[in-house]
């Protein structure tokens, strides 16, 4: 039994990418471009990189075309700043948004099948929160591949990685980051199919591990998004930034929480309540259904709380409608075929003729591992961990502050991924580090613990209870009492996990064992989100406190949360970068702490 828990083999490479989605593979592509023949290993939890969660992203990629007669990058920066509820870092805004168009062309030139207008040039669509002239009118800013833009991105990047000779490790999970003399030298990976632990040592390690939506009962996130990245960071003594910044997407399909893209609203879909009232005009008189997601989510939840929702008999969940009946066939069949098919397939209704049931669903984590504008991981403000990068949803640079606009996430993958690749390449001349003596100790203690417990507790029941409590008390609306109750409940659930028995003792594709590990991560992530939400006594973007419904100056900084022991969170702060405001250039006043009304 004992010899299961050892490092089966050690590999050396130039760059280790953990998470083979859009951000990780864009980073790898940049490394290959600057150093052809580089040895890059990409580990993914899913069966194959094409199955990464990036593939499910629907709506589009925001970028201002320099040839656009009306749109300008500064409008995009303003929209993102305002959308973030004044918590995005302005140096990141500038760097990402200025690089955006070039990166779109990079993808297109490598074969992405972006949709076209009649002249064969890239088509553009509007999206929530994106405007021209500082909020005057909707901007046609997003390029798109029908309603499967994420799939287009991952297919293109996977192809590029293949061509350049990347090494993929599929169905592998990083269980522990390795450090030597203060620098990150790689990770311990558990290979699920083979049932063995390996060490991969690298000159640069890039975390691109996605999101943590599975802490909630209703989420658009895939099964593998269990927030492992947050725990890797926390266990290594690193902070999580803005853990309480969680986005609830307004239109999740009732029941499974499947994402019904914002595209539905950008092509003209209308939200209606029980009385068939188009209620968004009351909450966002100008942008209405295209207001930012946190606003629309709160609007829908308010309609439901005030008795204007509809109760779904199968799932016993209250919801509102999205009305697509008035849209022409061309729109249904060509612009929104995938999304419209979700209502047909998962609810058995026809969106051309019937109203579609939707409700806010957890969707995205704005918070994450704090980094600078190159994705370099910070231990504290300005203090970096050499050799460690984080990009994409798992990181917080922060591009999105406390609320993300649609089409900005995909943009983040292909820009921050590239910037991290630029810097990772600079480390390739380093001498490879030796394996730390205690490599794997923490992993083996955890895994042998899971296999060694005996009790009657049910893993599924603990997970469901955690998800329910997070959805009810750490969801769209939060307040002190509910948050404290959630925190107590999470402590109790953590203790109960010690009584879960894993019946199969093999390491080979033992899903029970993997779920134990994931549950440990989910509980830790839930705890840090709940505590972050309790600590932040104001409301920003996706974080809304009913007991503190306004923005407070005291909280005009990012939250940093450290948790090396379960439940014991130590808080710090990181200032929000205000370089656009401080530069006093044209329109600088738009980048102060502005009002957020739509």
């Amino acid at each position, binding site marked *: 039994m004992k010899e299961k828990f050892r490092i089966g083999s050690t590999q050396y490479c130039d760059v280790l990418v953990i998470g083979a989605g859009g951000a990780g593979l864009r980073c790898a592509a940049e490394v290959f471009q600057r150093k052809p023949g580089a040895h890059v290993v990409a580990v993914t939890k899913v069966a194959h990189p094409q199955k990464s969660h990036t593939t499910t992203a629907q709506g589009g990629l925001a970028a201002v075309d320099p040839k656009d007669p009306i749109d300008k990058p500064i409008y995009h920066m303003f929209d993102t700043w305002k959308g973030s509820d004044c918590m995005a870092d302005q140096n990141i805004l500038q760097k990402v948004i200025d690089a955006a168009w070039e990166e779109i062309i990079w993808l297109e030139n490598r074969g992405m099948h972006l949709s076209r207008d009649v*002249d064969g040039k890239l088509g553009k669509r509007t999206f929530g929160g994106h405007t021209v002239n500082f909020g005057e009118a909707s901007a046609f800013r997003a390029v798109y591949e029908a309603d499967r833009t994420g799939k287009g991105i991952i297919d293109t990047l996977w192809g590029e990685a*293949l061509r350049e000779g990347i090494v993929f490790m599929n169905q592998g999970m990083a269980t522990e980051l390795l450090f030597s003399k203060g620098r990150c030298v790689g990770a311990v990976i558990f290979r699920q*199919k083979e049932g063995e632990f390996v060490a991969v040592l690298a000159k640069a390690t890039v975390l691109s591990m996605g999101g943590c939506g599975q802490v909630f009962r209703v989420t658009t996130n895939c099964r593998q998004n269990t927030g492992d990245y947050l725990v890797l960071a926390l266990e290594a003594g690193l902070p999580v930034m803005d853990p309480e910044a969680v986005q609830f997407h307004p239109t999740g399909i009732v029941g499974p929480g499947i994402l019904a893209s914002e595209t539905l609203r950008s092509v003209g879909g209308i939200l209606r309540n029980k009385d068939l009232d188009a209620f968004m005009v009351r909450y966002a008189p100008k942008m209405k259904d295209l207001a930012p997601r946190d606003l629309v989510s709160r609007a829908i939840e308010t309609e439901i709380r005030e008795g204007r929702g509809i109760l779904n008999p199968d799932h016993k969940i209250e919801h509102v409608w999205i009305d697509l009946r008035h849209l022409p066939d061309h729109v249904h069949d060509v612009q929104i075929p995938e999304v419209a098919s979700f209502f047909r397939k998962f609810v058995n209704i026809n969106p051309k003729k019937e109203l579609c049931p939707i409700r806010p669903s957890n969707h995205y984590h704005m918070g994450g591992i704090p980094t600078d504008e190159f994705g370099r991981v910070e231990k504290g403000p300005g203090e970096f961990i050499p050799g460690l990068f984080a990009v994409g949803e798992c990181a917080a640079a922060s591009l999105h502050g406390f609320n993300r606009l649609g089409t900005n996430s995909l943009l983040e993958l292909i820009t921050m991924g590239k910037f991290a690749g630029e810097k990772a390449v600079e480390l390739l001349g380093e001498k490879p580090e030796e394996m730390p003596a205690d490599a794997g100790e923490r992993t083996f203690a955890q895994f042998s613990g899971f296999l060694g417990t005996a009790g009657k507790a049910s893993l599924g029941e603990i997970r469901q209870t955690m998800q329910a409590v997070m959805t009810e008390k750490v969801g769209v609306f939060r307040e002190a009492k509910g948050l404290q109750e959630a925190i107590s409940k999470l402590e109790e659930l953590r203790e109960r996990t010690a009584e879960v028995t894993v019946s199969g003792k093999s390491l080979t594709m033992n899903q029970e064992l993997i779920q134990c590990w994931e549950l440990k991560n989910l509980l830790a992530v839930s705890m840090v989100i709940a505590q972050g939400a309790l600590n932040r006594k104001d409301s920003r973007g996706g974080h809304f406190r009913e007991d503190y419904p306004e923005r407070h100056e005291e909280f005009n900084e990012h939250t940093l949360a450290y948790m090396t022991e379960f439940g014991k969170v130590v808080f710090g702060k990181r200032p929000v970068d205000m370089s656009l405001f401080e530069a006093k250039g044209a329109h600088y006043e738009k980048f102060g702490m502005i009002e957020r009304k739509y």
Partner: protein
Amino acid sequence: MQENYDLTLRIKRYNPEEKRSWMQEYRLPAGRILRFTDVLRKINDEIDPTLAWNSSCEHAQCGTCSVQVNGKPLLACELLVENAVAQFGTTTFTIKPIPIAPLVRDLIVDLEKAYARVESVKPYIITPAENRNKGGEYQIPPQVMDQYVEATRCINCFCCATACISSHKNFLGPNAILASVVRLMDPREQAREERLKLLYSERGVYRCHTSKACSFVCPKEIDVAHFIALAKEGRFKR
């Protein structure tokens, strides 16, 4: 229309240590609108936590959860209980893994090995064609893109490869051919010779027997057989 159904699932199990296969039966009530992935999860939570099965997005976008239900290859996340009962005319379902890759455990196969056929056709631009719009996007008229855009929707779920009546050892397979055809029809790809060589090789289109099972089972409703037919009629030999 019932609210709940009493299901009997006969699932093919496989233990890799003992290299042993057997059928295991599970009986449980399931709500009408649950997906089969929800039902498998219910089995794990309430009856048997050791049953191993693969999934990711659970809404038919990633192609991870392919299984055979009563002989038909499909995505487990797309099969709703009430639709399954209506379509198959029974509440008893036999669930087996797809046979196109080595078994790992129970319903999980090594998809990485299955992807080898797709990767052999080089699903990327090998040699970029000249771009007259230097520094910008290639201009592709929508009528040109319309010819092949359906084929780009493939998620490599391997349902077509499972249904295909040709051997998956000696044939590229329908989804790999689709990937190759996409780039042959994409005006941005200049490398045609090597693609055509593989397409018309011993492992290529002549192994297709035009059963059209691929089009019939495709969860994305792509007419895979149409694209293979274009190849067979020599459409790409310029």
